[in-house]
């Protein structure tokens, strides 16, 4: 009975992770389309959610590989294994929600692996982690994903700009809109085939630990359906803060650039899924956006935003790992069942606190496309007051005869703060 209760908790928390995965990663597929206005924000997330749902049902290749080659959990008893998985998921969810709060695109897969590694170290020591596998499956791909994606997107965007340098703005806006929608759809499908399966793998692992499933059994249909629905629901909620950073923060995306970035990401994700190379969709999508921005001469990559994102990528694995490890140690104080309940309660409180904090600077479908460098209202008012004072001073010097009447100057455009 106790094992069943822990299993139920693990499955529910795994589905919550799947939800945050969709929520966090909506940006990977839809940020360029939302940023260029190719799709309205609500339509974009609805389309992405539907295609994630389809993608999640298409293949289960990735599900079989979750955790394998990264942690060695052989010989661990069922309840302890489920507790390790629960603590790993908790670390992953907390990191996902925290990076969402700061609007940083970070890898959900890395947070999951980080959480599992941390909980495993707390349970079994460092010998429980297969460090060669960590290097091959996490660290090297993490370094390579943005570089490969950046190269491909740079090439694509450069070629597209070369070919279409004389086309009209109208053709650019209308002609590339459909290309961008197609590419974003492909990317959503790719995301579904890749990410939903990680949660399927985690639930499968928990069921094997509980003894409900044989390790060689096929993936049960109910797991595929609930995971597909959880990631689709998360995607539909739309992680607007991350969409805003990826779509507006790193570089101002043009329709041609958005299409090239999305095609680059989709082709790389689909190929890497097929080859079993676990590239993070977030790293690929972000690398593509940066690469496509660098190929344009009329747009500047905001490296300050990119640096913050890079820092989040570096910290993801150890941070999620630390939370996972602490959770396991805390759960150990209470015993398996009560420990699981305590950890779940901590998770709920932490997520609720971060959600409440997010309400202070709300980002949603209505303001997700606002200009990145737009001045806050107070600063705008202050700038207006300063301008008014300067004009008054100029008028008073002219009126008192200190300065000659100057020729009327052209009004400066609104772009420079007017």
């Amino acid at each position: 009975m106790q094992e069943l209760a822990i299993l139920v908790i693990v499955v529910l928390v795994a589905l919550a992770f799947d939800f945050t995965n969709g929520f966090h990663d909506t940006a990977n597929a839809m940020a360029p389309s939302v940023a260029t206005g190719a799709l309205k924000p609500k339509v974009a997330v609805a389309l992405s959610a539907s295609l994630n749902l389809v993608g999640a049902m298409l293949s289960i290749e990735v599900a079989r590989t979750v955790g394998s080659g990264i942690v060695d959990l052989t010989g661990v008893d069922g309840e302890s294994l489920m507790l390790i998985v629960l603590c790993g998921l908790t670390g992953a969810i907390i990191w996902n929600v925290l990076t969402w709060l700061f609007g940083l695109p970070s890898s959900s897969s890395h947070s999951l692996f980080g959480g599992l590694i941390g909980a495993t170290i707390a349970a079994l020591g460092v010998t429980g982690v297969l460090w060669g596998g960590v290097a091959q499956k996490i660290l090297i791909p993490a370094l390579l994903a943005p570089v490969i994606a950046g190269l491909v997107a740079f090439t694509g965007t450069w070629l597209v700009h070369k070919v279409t340098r004389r086309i009209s703005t109208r053709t650019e806006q209308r002609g590339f809109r459909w290309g961008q929608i197609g590419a974003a759809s492909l990317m959503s499908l790719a995301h579904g085939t890749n990410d939903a399966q990680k949660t399927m793998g985690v639930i499968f692992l928990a069921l094997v630990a509980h003894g409900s499933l044989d390790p060689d059994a096929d993936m049960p249909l109910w797991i595929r359906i609930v995971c597909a629905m959880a990631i689709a629901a998360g995607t539909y909620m739309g992680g607007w803060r991350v969409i805003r950073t990826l779509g507006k923060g790193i570089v101002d995306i043009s329709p041609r650039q958005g299409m090239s970035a999305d095609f680059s990401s989709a082709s790389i994700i689909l190929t890497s899924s097929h080859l079993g190379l676990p590239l993070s969709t977030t790293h690929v999508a972000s690398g593509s956006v940066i690469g496509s921005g660098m190929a344009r001469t009329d747009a500047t990559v905001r490296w300050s935003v990119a640096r913050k994102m890079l820092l989040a990528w570096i910290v993801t694995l150890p941070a999620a790992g630390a939370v996972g490890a602490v959770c396991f140690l805390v759960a150990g104080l209470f015993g398996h069942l009560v420990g699981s309940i305590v950890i779940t309660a901590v998770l709920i409180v932490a997520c609720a606190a971060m959600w409440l904090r997010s309400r202070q600077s709300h980002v949603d479908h209505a303001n997700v496309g606002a200009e990145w460098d737009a001045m806050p209202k107070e600063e705008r008012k202050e700038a207006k007051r300063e301008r008014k004072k300067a004009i008054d001073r100029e008028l008073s010097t002219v009126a008192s005869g200190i300065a000659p009447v100057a020729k009327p100057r052209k009004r400066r455009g609104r772009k420079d703060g007017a």
Partner: protein
Amino acid sequence: MFDLSALLVSIVSVLVVGVLLGAGIPTIYALGARQLEQSAPRNRVLGWTAMAVCVLLAAMGIVLIVFGKALFGI
């Protein structure tokens, strides 16, 4: 176990397919968009053909990558 050769093969494959499809499809699409801007029937036919090639390549990519093992053993 760290398998460097398998990793390298995967990376090169992803890069090659990425450049071919990820950069190739947008370029063909751009060529199509440029042709469609012209009003001559020949240009429009060429333009729509390029668009159709893009759709075909994307669909083929999905089928090969998602169902490649089941259908063709690759």
